[in-house]
């Protein structure tokens, strides 16, 4: 009979941190971390000391001072007496506008081009290849400047619309004016408006939300909900009786009638642009800086997205297409119902980084004088106050926050579309 003895209990000794392989890697990591933190601390204290030696200690008080400059594109009310913080906020909104518009357009164009590049039509496929290679291989800054130059040089100035025999006329039944200062489109006006709700009182982040808009959204959501109910009822009837009741006129009525009633009740009408003095007034003014930036960023990013989409589609085995075709599905439906849903799981992750790139590239806005957050906070405010460190740090934080939010949303979406694995 053998006696089982416990293995000798080992006492921890300091030397084991170095000689025992179980602890060594942790030791090295802790030492490396400490070294890194020391380096970071040294850099930080060096910066602060140098700034103090220059007589510019880090402080953020200047944000509440009046900005004293004007911003042309402002989604919220702003004038030159508002604070630097407010100006930065207006710039942030402009960044978000061009980022959102750009991401949406880039996705639509990118998916289309990506699919068309695989087209069996030789001409279409080649044209798309040329597009992708052209946009992908030229720096985006050049595209932005190029787009702006085309808008400025080729379109008529507002004064060309004036006089007895104007050299330029408005388009679309006199409702849209395309000039080299931007495009003026009709705007929605409500003569019996419900007014606005104000948020955040008098602070720099204050904004108004139009009650008209909220009403429209609520009615639209209600319509869609009712349409779903009707469709569900139709499906159920079809399952039970085999006959599908006719519902398209009900659906049409559900979406249009409530909206029409609401719009009439609010006194909806369009405000048309009109040449007054130096410029068109009335209507919504899409400045050419916004158009140039939006166009260049989306076409540039779309070229990358097209390649991702093409790669995603090619990643799905050809057998899937053949199987779907054998079931009698037509080309378009094969793509929409079989291939794309599976390709999405390959497409989404690299798509995230393209959205991030587009958003960060929007900081090139100043090249065409678009007042984004880099132009306001990182441009004029920084220049007028001389607070480089504070402005740049804040700017970095803002972009970090935007990027992380985009990542979070896209990762959530990725979770939803990825194949359920068992």
């Amino acid at each position, binding site marked *: 009979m053998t006696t089982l003895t416990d293995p000798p209990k080992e006492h921890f000794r300091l030397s084991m941190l170095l000689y025992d392989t179980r602890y060594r890697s942790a030791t090295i990591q802790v030492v490396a971390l400490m070294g890194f933190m020391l380096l*970071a601390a040294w*850099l930080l204290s060096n910066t602060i000391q140098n700034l103090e030696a*220059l007589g510019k200690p880090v402080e953020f008080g200047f944000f509440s001072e009046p900005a*004293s*400059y004007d911003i*042309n594109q402002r989604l919220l009310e702003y004038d030159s007496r508002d604070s630097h913080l407010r100006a930065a906020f207006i710039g942030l909104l402009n960044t978000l506008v061009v980022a959102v518009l750009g991401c949406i357009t880039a996705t639509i164009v990118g998916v289309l081009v990506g699919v068309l590049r695989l087209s069996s039509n030789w001409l279409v496929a080649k044209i798309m290849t040329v597009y992708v290679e052209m946009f992908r291989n030229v720096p985006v800054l050049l595209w932005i400047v190029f787009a702006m130059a085309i808008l400025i040089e080729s379109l008529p100035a*507002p004064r060309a619309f004036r006089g007895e025999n104007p050299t330029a006329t408005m388009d679309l039944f006199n409702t849209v004016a395309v000039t080299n200062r931007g495009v003026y489109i009709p705007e929605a006006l409500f003569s019996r408006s419900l007014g606005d709700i104000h948020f955040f009182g008098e602070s720099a982040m204050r904004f108004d939300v139009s009650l008209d808009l909220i009403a429209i959204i609520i009615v639209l959501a209600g319509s869609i909900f009712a349409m779903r109910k009707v469709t569900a009822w139709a499906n159920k009837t079809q399952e039970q009786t085999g006959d599908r009741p006719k519902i398209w006129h009900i659906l049409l009525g559900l979406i249009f009638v409530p909206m029409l009633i609401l719009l009439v009740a609010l006194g909806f009408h369009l405000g048309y642009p009109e040449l007054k003095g130096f410029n068109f007034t009335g209507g919504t003014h899409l400045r050419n800086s916004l158009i140039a930036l939006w166009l260049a960023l989306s076409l540039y990013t779309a070229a990358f997205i097209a390649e991702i989409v093409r790669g995603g589609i090619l990643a799905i085995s050809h057998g899937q297409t053949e199987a779907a075709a054998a079931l009698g599905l037509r080309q378009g439906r094969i793509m929409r119902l079989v291939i794309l849903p599976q390709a999405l799981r390959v497409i989404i992750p690299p798509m995230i980084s393209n959205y991030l790139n587009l958003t960060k590239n929007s900081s090139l806005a100043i090249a065409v004088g678009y007042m984004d957050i880099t132009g306001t906070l990182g441009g004029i405010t920084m*220049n007028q106050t*001389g607070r*480089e460190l504070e402005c740049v740090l804040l700017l970095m934080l803002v972009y970090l926050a935007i990027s992380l939010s985009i990542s979070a949303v896209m990762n959530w979406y990725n979770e939803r579309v990825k194949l359920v694995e068992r």
Partner: protein
Amino acid sequence: MKKTIFVGAATVVTLAAGAAMAGTADDVKARGKLNCGVTTGLAGFAAPDANGEWKGFDVSMCRAVAAAVLGDPNAVEFVPTTGKTRFTALASGEIDLLARNTTWTFSRDVDLKFEFIGVNYYDGQGFMVPKELGVSSAKELDGATVCIQTGTTTELNLADFFRTNNISYEPVPIETNAEAQQQYLAGACDVYTTDASGLAATRASFEDPSAHILLPEIISKEPLGPLVRHGDHEWGDVARWTLNALISAEELGVTSANINDIASSTENPEIKRLLGTEGTLGEMLGLDAEWAQRAIAAGGNYGEIFAKNIGEDTPIGLARGLNAQWTDGGLLYSPPFR
């Protein structure tokens, strides 16, 4: 399972060469070159000519300082800066002297920690419009689209001007003078506003300058001057008195043509002190006795520099106006060399 420690690297912006500046004058001498910040290109003030050589009113200031300190007016490294980058370039030590028609304001002097060494051009903000618009006063510009160079005082003056006159405008912010010119000529803006001297210089480079007019309103005071970093007084003194030497030389009738004759023949004690044939002014500055002679010989006195680059006989065609000597009813007034 292995645990890796992720450390989020905090990015820290360090300002290079913030502290421990021994003395810019010594640095410049050791380097053998003066780093001088100028515009990215404004005809008459600072622009490279056909041979790639920098020429202009501001450039002459750089050359005069280089001649005084280093003995060679060509020992200058010109660093083109935009309205946005100029202050960072100076504060970080990338340039030793900024001669880029920069307006002397309280906050730049006090808060941004710079030292203006004087005024080399008294200017004011003006407006340029195409003649065909039929505008005769800036107050008629209600609703106009205005091109401005971003990051300049003109941006702030403009906001104030339109606000106090209770009229509206649409600002189009632009990085450089060249872009502004392009947008203005294409009619993307009705008005271009900047310092009146800059407008004159820009208009001179147009194909048809007569189709554009400068409006009579001058909406601000823009004393333009070279500047250095705050705190280095020896260097500030060198730059300040080089500018004063150029101004005094004009007042005393010393030109680049007659400077050698005058230096040997003059009996005027102030000229003698200025040119270093008497007294020890150069030594007090940490330079040799002939520093001012070289500065004046480099491009001439203030009047010569003005006439050669932006004066009435040049395409830019600026009158002396406020920039005449005090003896001629202008504002130029150098403290005595004594």
